[in-house]
């Protein structure tokens, strides 16, 4: 069994690391000090590019490349930490911010230096009220310790951090909707281009990085790109936090090198399925994922960006793995995910607003014994019509469980419809 690592969930190895003095006594802010006092921003960017770190929020885009898109003739630059963690099945950023907050903040500070930002924000979902209060205290402690403010380490560099709370809207995890929300508007995605790298927060060049992505930066700058690349796989280097939930004996966060198999996560780390049931299927990236039938090929697939997408036609995304045992009715599941997306659709673009609405009617009919046999095909058609037509990924995500569910588990849908015929 692959041993769990503690590069990100470091509080599991070092008690009280959420205290600034303990974090510093264990090498905390040495990486930040090193970059500010001895490296040019371009050098930092080069190390991160070389490490192969990819965005941990879901898209898996190379972090260093993303930073490199910021133009050097428009100022100021901003960095925004995406702490809107709202994907059903994801609860990793929360653990980092609750228990290892300074490593996350140090990562945000390193990213800010690398792109020349003097003011950066942490955008948290509103439900993370207590976490935000904790971060506010941590930021005040950093200011008092001279690690944030003007002229850091006797250089010209100044940096301030601020938290901003959302107020309950999944869509604000989408980076342009997040920016709108941070500007005090409805959290609705922007039409792109222009991309946030050029026209972001307050119309200025902006980098938006996920909490887990940023938390990777202190160890990368400390130990080097070669060290990071020695973990994980060639194309998906490093470690990842897998949030394991659903029908599983030991749900929770597991920090593992990318490339560990689903089988190992589910059976060795997660302890398998309760009550002696078997795994019928799983979702690899929360409610936004296709439903994967848990055959041997799927279970033996390495959990990295390429293998998951390539072998299973499912994204690794934020690596929120939801386990479904043999008692789960996939029509019920699809009704749950559609209900979620219908509720969370921001209403800006018609295919998503209307599509999730009509899919919701159909899944409700199917699961409440009121469907006609042709409703299954109709549901699939509505989902197919939405694909490729929505303004942002949310609309696309809403069709994933629907189409894969009907394709792979049609019998579950038909059983619901038969119930209607006999009802």
């Amino acid at each position, binding site marked *: 069994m692959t041993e769990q690592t503690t590069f990100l969930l470091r509080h599991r190895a070092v008690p009280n690391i959420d205290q600034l003095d303990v974090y510093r006594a264990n090498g905390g802010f040495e990486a930040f000090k090193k970059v500010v006092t001895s490296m040019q921003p371009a050098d930092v960017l080069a190390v991160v590019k070389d490490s192969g770190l990819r965005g941990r929020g879901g898209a898996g885009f190379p972090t260093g490349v993303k930073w490199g898109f910021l133009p050097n003739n428009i100022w100021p630059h901003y960095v925004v930490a995406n702490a809107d963690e709202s994907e059903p099945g994801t609860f990793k950023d929360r653990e980092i911010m609750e228990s290892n907050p300074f490593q996350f903040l140090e990562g945000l500070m390193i990213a800010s230096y690398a792109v020349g930002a003097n003011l950066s924000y942490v955008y948290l979902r509103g439900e993370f009220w207590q976490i935000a209060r904790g971060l506010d205290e941590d930021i005040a402690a950093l200011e008092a310790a001279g690690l944030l403010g003007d002229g850091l380490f006797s250089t010209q560099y100044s940096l301030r951090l601020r938290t901003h709370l959302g107020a309950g809207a999944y869509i604000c995890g989408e980076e342009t909707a997040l920016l709108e929300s941070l500007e*005090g508007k*409805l959290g609705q995605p922007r039409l792109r281009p222009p991309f946030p790298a050029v026209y972001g927060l307050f119309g200025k060049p902006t980098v938006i990085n996920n909490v887990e992505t940023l938390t990777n930066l202190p160890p990368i700058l400390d130990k080097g790109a070669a060290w990071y690349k020695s973990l994980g796989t060639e194309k998906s280097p490093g470690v990842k936090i897998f949030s394991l939930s659903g029908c599983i004996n030991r749900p929770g966060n597991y920090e593992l090198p990318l490339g560990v198999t689903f089988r190992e996560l589910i059976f060795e780390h997660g302890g398998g399925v309760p009550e002696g049931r078997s795994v019928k299927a799983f979702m690899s990236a929360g409610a936004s994922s296709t439903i994967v039938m848990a055959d041997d090929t799927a279970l033996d697939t390495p959990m990295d960006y390429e293998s998951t997408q390539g072998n299973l036609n499912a994204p690794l995304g934020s690596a929120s793995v939801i386990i479904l045992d043999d008692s789960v009715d996939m029509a019920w599941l699809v009704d749950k995910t559609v209900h979620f997306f219908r509720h969370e659709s921001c209403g800006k673009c018609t295919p998503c607003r209307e599509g999730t609405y009509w899919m919701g009617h159909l899944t409700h009919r199917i699961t409440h014994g009121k469907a006609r046999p042709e409703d299954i095909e109709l549901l699939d058609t509505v989902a197919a019509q939405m694909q490729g037509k929505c303004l942002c990924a949310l609309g696309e995500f809403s069709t994933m469980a629907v189409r894969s569910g009907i394709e792979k588990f049609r019998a579950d849908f038909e059983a619901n419809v038969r119930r209607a015929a006999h009802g």
Partner: protein
Amino acid sequence: MNALLSKYPEQVEQILARYPADQKRAAVMPLLYLAQAEDNYVTKQEIADIAEIVGISDTDVVSIIGFYTLYHDEPGGRYRIQVCTDLPCALRGADQFLKNLCENIGVRVGETTPDGLVTIESVMCLAGCHRAPMFQLQGDGDIAYHENMTVEKTLALIEELRRHVKTGEAAHD
């Protein structure tokens, strides 16, 4: 006279200081939280006050209240128990938990107890999937998570809230 500003002059100033001076509008969300801190909803007067502070229309403020689920423009219970019934929680019995809880309290989802203490609601994923059944408690200007919950533990919590409110009122008298 801006009542919100008069009531919380320091807090309003601190909130505005978090954003660039020419980007006051960004303060609208924290100001809404400030406005509903005391009684868990935003009044018409507070909407007008916020609009004036950040320089947008009342309608803009109302549209933000409508868009985000954590803002309320009408009074509900003094506390809101918001149970996550999304997929991962549902796989761990959240739907049954909510149903049993409602039966025990004698209200339906979305309703408030007759004494106005608690509104029971069903909400989307709260990032507590591994510790379901779980809910957040919104009230007194705070949002707190309660995880690995049972109906019994929740009823005890409600009793505690009831005592807390009574003691608070007694202290005011």
